[in-house]
């Protein structure tokens, strides 16, 4: 009995859902470049006026057919700001797309979107390139998120629609793509400024922008899972670290290096007592160094704060100490100067880097490193446990590889 009920329910659901899916099916074909359902004339829409100047008959560049679009500002007393899309004549549109209102109110960009399905390939987007010219774009990276695909999504123009058929001679796919890229660049720069302004509201960020901060635990710098948000109050930032313990740091950037220094590398320089060591020079010394010092690229520095990094720290997951070999080299160069109980300034600088040359200095910070009695054991080894090597002995072994 129960099985029968379930079967009837599924059948009823399928029957109800089919007309909707059939409608969207044609559009999905169109979205993916297949057969379209367009055709006929929608010229009567040209007689309608709307404040966006969108309503009318449009001609497709790809399949040469005509389609209808109508901008609807208000419906049932509510502001809706949506775009109705007609593939065939009738009162009911085959699809309705929502407007991203803030793009229009702040940037005068008319962008409409709809998620036909929650997957990336179910995303439909229309962007006005100039009055009477629309680009239909797709993206393949993001799933439904409650709004349009983010500005990070790479958009590809699939079709161009023009009120005046003659305009399609000018607006081919490449031209439309170029214009879409320009529109997105402008939206992205506004987004970057807006995000930086948000970060600047935080005193911790405002006081430390373009600086490197230090702590003896990575989670005092950044909460796990929040690389994109300021999630600490800065109370646990340190100006002095015991060399026996964890030595972590993190940079605050005015703008994300991924955006501001696209396509470049990141170099980190350590300086103590005037002696400088940087990752890029270390990396090029040998295969052994290259294995230990990985290339850092700006594409992985996508927020206003870096991921947390370590001069040296105990990694619970790996049950081992991990260290930046360039930083250890810098300490190693100074080891003969270390005295028990003494403190030594370590300056850390992060640069944009390209083709073997440092570019802009992105962040800088100084921390005092204390060579405590415990640090002496950690670095020189414990006489009571001669089987365990200290940091210097391990590093000597590495240098002799």
């Amino acid at each position, binding site marked *: 009995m129960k099985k029968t009920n379930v079967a009837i329910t599924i059948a009823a659901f399928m029957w109800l859902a089919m007309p909707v899916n059939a409608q969207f099916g044609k559009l999905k074909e169109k979205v993916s470049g297949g057969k379209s359902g367009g055709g006929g004339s929608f010229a009567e829409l040209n007689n309608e006026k709307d404040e966006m100047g969108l309503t009318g008959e449009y001609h497709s560049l790809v399949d040469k057919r005509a389609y209808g679009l109508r901008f609807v500002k208000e419906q049932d007393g509510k502001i809706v700001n949506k775009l109705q899309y007609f593939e065939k004549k009738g009162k009911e549109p085959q699809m309705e797309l929502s407007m991203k209102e803030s793009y229009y109110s702040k940037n005068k960009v008319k962008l409409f979107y709809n998620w036909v399905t929650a997957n990336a390939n179910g995303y439909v987007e229309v962007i006005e390139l100039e009055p009477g010219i629309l680009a239909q774009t797709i993206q393949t990276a993001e799933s439904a998120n409650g709004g349009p695909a983010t500005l990070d999504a790479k958009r590809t123009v699939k079709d161009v629609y023009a009120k005046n058929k003659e305009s399609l001679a000018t607006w081919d796919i490449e031209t439309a793509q170029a214009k879409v890229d320009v529109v997105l660049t402008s939206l992205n720069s506004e987004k970057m400024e807006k995000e930086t302004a948000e970060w600047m509201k935080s005193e911790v960020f405002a006081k430390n922008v373009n600086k490197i901060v230090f702590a003896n635990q990575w989670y005092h710098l950044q909460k796990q899972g929040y690389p994109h948000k300021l999630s600490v109050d*800065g109370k646990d930032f340190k*100006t002095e670290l015991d060399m026996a313990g964890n030595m972590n740091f993190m940079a605050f950037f005015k703008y994300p290096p991924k955006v501001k220094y696209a396509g470049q*590398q990141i170099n980190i320089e350590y300086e103590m007592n005037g002696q400088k060591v940087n990752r890029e020079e270390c990396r090029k010394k040998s295969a052994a160094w290259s294995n230990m010092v990985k290339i850092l690229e700006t594409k992985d520095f996508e927020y206003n704060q870096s991921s947390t990094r370590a001069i040296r720290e105990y990694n619970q997951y790996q049950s081992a100490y991990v260290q930046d070999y360039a930083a250890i080299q810098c300490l190693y160069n100074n080891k003969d100067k270390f005295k028990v109980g003494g403190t030594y300034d370590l300056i850390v600088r992060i640069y944009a880097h390209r083709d*073997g040359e440092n570019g802009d200095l992105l962040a800088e910070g100084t921390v005092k490193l204390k060579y405590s009695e415990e640090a002496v054991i950690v670095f020189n080894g414990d006489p009571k446990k001669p089987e365990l090597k200290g940091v210097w002995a391990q590093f000597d072994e590495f240098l002799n590889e």
Partner: protein
Amino acid sequence: MVKLFYSLIMMISFVCANAQNNQNAEIAELTSGNFSVYKAVGKGNDFKFELAAKPWPVDLKKEGEVYTEVTIKRAGIIEEKYQVDLPGCPAYYKSSTTDVVITVIDKKIYYYTYSIKSGSIIQYILSESKVGNYNNEKAELDDYRTKIKILQTTARTERIEENKALAEKEARENTLEGKAIKDIKVLLVNAGADIGMLSIVSIGFEVILADGTILKTKNLGGKTPYADFEVKVSGGQYSGGDLKVANDSREIPNDKIEVEAWSKFGDKKIVGKLSHPINYNSEINYQYQGASGASGRGMTVGYSENGQDGKNGRSVRINAEKLTVNGTVISHLKITDATTGQLLSEAKLNQLAKITINVSGGNGGSGCEGRSCYSGNGGSGGNAGDGGDVYLSGSAASFLQIVVMNDGGKGGKGGAAKTTNNTSGSNGSNGKKGNFYK
């Protein structure tokens, strides 16, 4: 001077061009004008080139013997400018706003992005002749980028040396070394009205030289290194332009932060001083939670397969008394171990500020997973520690804004069995929440 510069560039170009053409030589084969556009379409590793409907205008700008800029009018409507990477031996032209770069090889203009790890991703090739298949074009471009980099060494070293010389000149102008100092000012930088324990305040140094020149540290907009100063601090720790106020009020004599600074190159004749009262209006926190137990580690000498027990949070007594400091009524807290009576810390706190005391129990360590244990059985999780008790008393207890974290820890999870013939470890017990008495 300009002639000398271009002569130098030409000499370097000649050296560079011996084995492979740099961009000055490659672009010389082209003339500005319209170019057919081949667009890379596809995904993953499967790309092919399609001819775009219309050509794009390209303008090649030359100054002396160097092609300094390539302008591409994308799709005929969007003007994009690309600047030379290294005038002495150019390999590509770069954009100031995107990661797109331009390289010309055999009269083909490559429009692409480049990663040192994965090489090039070609978006378009602008060319009057037909282009090859995508993989061959990419291979040729990647090979060019690799080889030209070696040939750029001379020009690049030259530029690095020039930049280094400029940096050294700037450093000489801004260092205190060898300079006669008339006065040093120690200044708070953008300090808010509220400074309390654990606050980090920016400290800048302004130096007036005998000849009237003023040098400043970076946080005051100058370029004098912080490392040029010897700094003595009372009330906190200083490093690189930042002073972090102590976390124990016993380390803040007279309720002030005090800084003295002098040149590390001099004989301490000129000393700058700063004395600044603080109002303790800053949130603070103290951590007395129990340590978590270590996870079980099978097949490791000296370790058990079972997770270790978490420790209990410390039980503490907080005596809060009213006190007037620098004209403000504050709470003076003495925090002692409830069991031993040992004084752990003293704190001073504005009535508006919050204190957080964490006496949570430590979590139990997880048991070793069966696949990592000799027996194949999962190790047992350790028991968690209990939360500590907090006893609050004193004349300021009623208005103290205090947050107590005294939950018991979570018991460690038992390790999973290796096979169905093995047994899983049992979970450790959770700790009990502590009490807050006031």
